[in-house]
């Protein structure tokens, strides 16, 4: 395998392929920073060009945009609390908190390094473990997907440092919002109140823009000041780079979660990003640090989303099952060039496959270098005074929401969820629950109904499938455990209050 990879590296570094990787990486970086656009849009627009390119160059173009765009979403997440790509949503929690402390450069250094290492782990997994991991992915059917989705929602409750009921309430609200529109199973329009515009679901991107960007600009309008509360930038980019290596466990956990989420079709980088953050919060000795600039709160999510984007190519190339919009485009590009996804692809087209893998490694190095070059300047945004920054944020947010589907309905959703996010933050309700509920709602319901179809309506299928049953038991333990901890801390609080009285 090593000699195949070396041959692939030589192929990837040929001038015409390298040119494609460099230009695509720069394009992906630029597109990924802008909320509402996203790398998948750039991939879709440039997709027809792949028809006229050599197969390897076409695949490298799409993959480089996808990978660079996934990383660069963290830049706006850190500087202005707006994830440029949904897969950087969780990076806002601690990344933006660090920016508020004047440490935007440190946060970016952490993000770049963790993204690079996550990308490396994902790439190496793709190269070395495609076939065995593909076999694991085949064991995940509808019942297992349903169990995973439920687990994802329960992790929200477990990871919440506040009230369990508030976290679950937001998760349920997210699920409720995901039901608006034509249902995925039977195509029945629900909760549309007769409006045709509501038959397509409420877009995830406008909700995200509302909950994070619009809510934050509302807070800035109320609080004033600058994003960097001290009015200065502290720390350097390389302080962030060093910080990553002080937390190897968080890096490893984030990368592993990313690989698992990438290998299982339907899960994706957004879930990986959020799950990694919640998991870190859960295992930390001092969970109260998260959401206030904990380095692990950036390391794990950024390693996770980049590992996931690479690992998602495993089911795509070996099983022909795309894990996301981006990998779906890669799959179509593969088939259009007369190639057939599956285990035989590796043996029949080794130059192409290993050239592609090597090219992705080169792309990861490039986005790291470009990121380190540009990030220090972008951090200066955090020093802009609120009266100048807020109007710009308002424009970028609402135009970004409009750009999603070129619809004013999405602008309205962004505003509505901006108010929801503002109120939720004010009263201590974790918006991550709402995001997870909205994200997982479709998968949860679809896999629920598919499972019942398979079992002829018997709910026992969720207990009879060992993997699904184990995952559901874990989810139940998380909720019960979290509730008990919550009750214990409230009891301690009331004892303290009695003592003070």
């Amino acid at each position, binding site marked *: 395998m090593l000699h195949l990879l070396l041959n692939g590296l030589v192929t990837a570094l040929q001038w015409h392929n390298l040119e494609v990787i460099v230009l695509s990486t720069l394009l992906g970086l630029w597109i990924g920073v802008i909320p509402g656009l996203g790398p998948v849009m750039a991939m879709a627009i440039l997709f027809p060009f792949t028809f006229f390119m050599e197969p390897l160059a076409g695949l490298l173009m799409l993959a480089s945009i996808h990978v660079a765009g996934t990383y660069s979403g963290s830049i706006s997440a850190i500087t202005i609390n707006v994830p440029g790509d949904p897969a950087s949503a969780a990076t806002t929690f601690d990344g933006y908190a660090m920016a508020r402390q004047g440490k935007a450069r440190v946060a970016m250094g952490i993000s770049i390094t963790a993204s690079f290492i996550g990308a490396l782990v994902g790439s190496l997994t793709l190269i070395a473990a495609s076939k065995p991991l593909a076999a694991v992915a085949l064991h995940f059917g509808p019942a297992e997907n349903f169990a995973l989705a439920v687990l994802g929602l329960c992790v929200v409750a477990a990871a919440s440092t506040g009230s369990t009921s*508030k976290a679950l309430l937001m998760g349920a609200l997210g699920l409720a919002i995901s039901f608006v529109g034509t*249902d995925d199973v039977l195509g029945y329009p629900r909760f549309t109140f007769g409006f045709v515009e509501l038959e397509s679901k409420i877009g995830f991107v406008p909700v995200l823009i509302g909950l994070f960007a619009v809510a934050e600009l509302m807070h800035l309008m109320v609080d004033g000041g600058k994003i960097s509360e001290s009015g200065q930038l502290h720390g350097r980019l390389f302080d962030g780079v060093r910080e990553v290596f002080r937390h190897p466990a968080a890096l490893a956990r984030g990368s592993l979660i990313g690989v698992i989420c990438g290998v299982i079709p339907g899960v994706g980088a957004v879930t990986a990003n959020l799950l990694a953050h919640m998991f870190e919060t859960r295992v930390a000795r001092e969970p109260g640090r998260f959401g206030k600039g904990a380095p692990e709160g950036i390391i794990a999510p950024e390693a996770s989303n980049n590992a996931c984007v690479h690992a998602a190519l495993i089911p795509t190339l070996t099983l022909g099952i795309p894990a996301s919009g981006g990998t779906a485009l890669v799959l179509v590009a593969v088939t259009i060039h007369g190639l057939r996804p599956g285990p035989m692809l590796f043996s029949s087209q080794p130059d192409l496959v290993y050239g592609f893998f090597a090219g992705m490694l080169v792309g990861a190095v490039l986005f790291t270098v470009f990121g380190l070059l540009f990030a220090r300047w972008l951090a200066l945004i955090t020093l802009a005074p609120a009266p100048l920054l807020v109007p710009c944020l308002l424009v970028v947010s609402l135009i970004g929401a409009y750009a999603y589907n070129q619809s004013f309905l999405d602008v309205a959703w962004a505003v509505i969820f901006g108010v929801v996010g503002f109120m939720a933050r004010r009263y201590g309700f974790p918006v991550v629950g709402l995001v997870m509920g909205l994200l997982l709602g479709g998968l949860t319901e679809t896999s629920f109904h598919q499972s019942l179809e398979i079992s002829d309506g018997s709910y026992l299928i969720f207990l009879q499938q060992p993997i699904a049953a184990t995952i559901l038991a874990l989810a139940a333990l998380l909720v019960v455990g979290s509730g008990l901890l919550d009750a214990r801390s409230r009891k301690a609080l009331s004892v303290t209050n009695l003592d003070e009285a």
Partner: protein
Amino acid sequence: MSQQNRHSALGERIFVGVIGLVFAIQFGLAMSYPADPRLFPLIVAAIGVGLAVATQIRGREKRPPKAPESIAPKRLALALIVPPLYGIVLWALGFWVATILAIPALSLLLGYRRYFLILLVTLGMTLAVGLLFPVVNITVPRPALFVH
């Protein structure tokens, strides 16, 4: 309980109450759908109503947690009015006019008085977004009021 805490507790109860109402409405509407499309929304709505009630009950503590800082009413009104207002003007007058009006207006309302910087940011932001988006095949919003 201090007045600030009372206001905060009331605000939180209203927020949870609205969420509970959303679930109740969803439950009621879902009852009218056929069996399969209504099953999951019914389950989630029932759980949601239960969670809303539980959160309301838990909110009635003798000593509630530290209330969030109070907000000046004018600033709160600005925060709640400006985003939807910009959205409406964006729809009515299109991107170019709405943005050229919104950026200086909001900067001045927030108390900024460095006029040259405001002008610079207005022009820079408007041109950057207005020229960038068409490059990726996205047209910025056109004025609805002047569409024939």
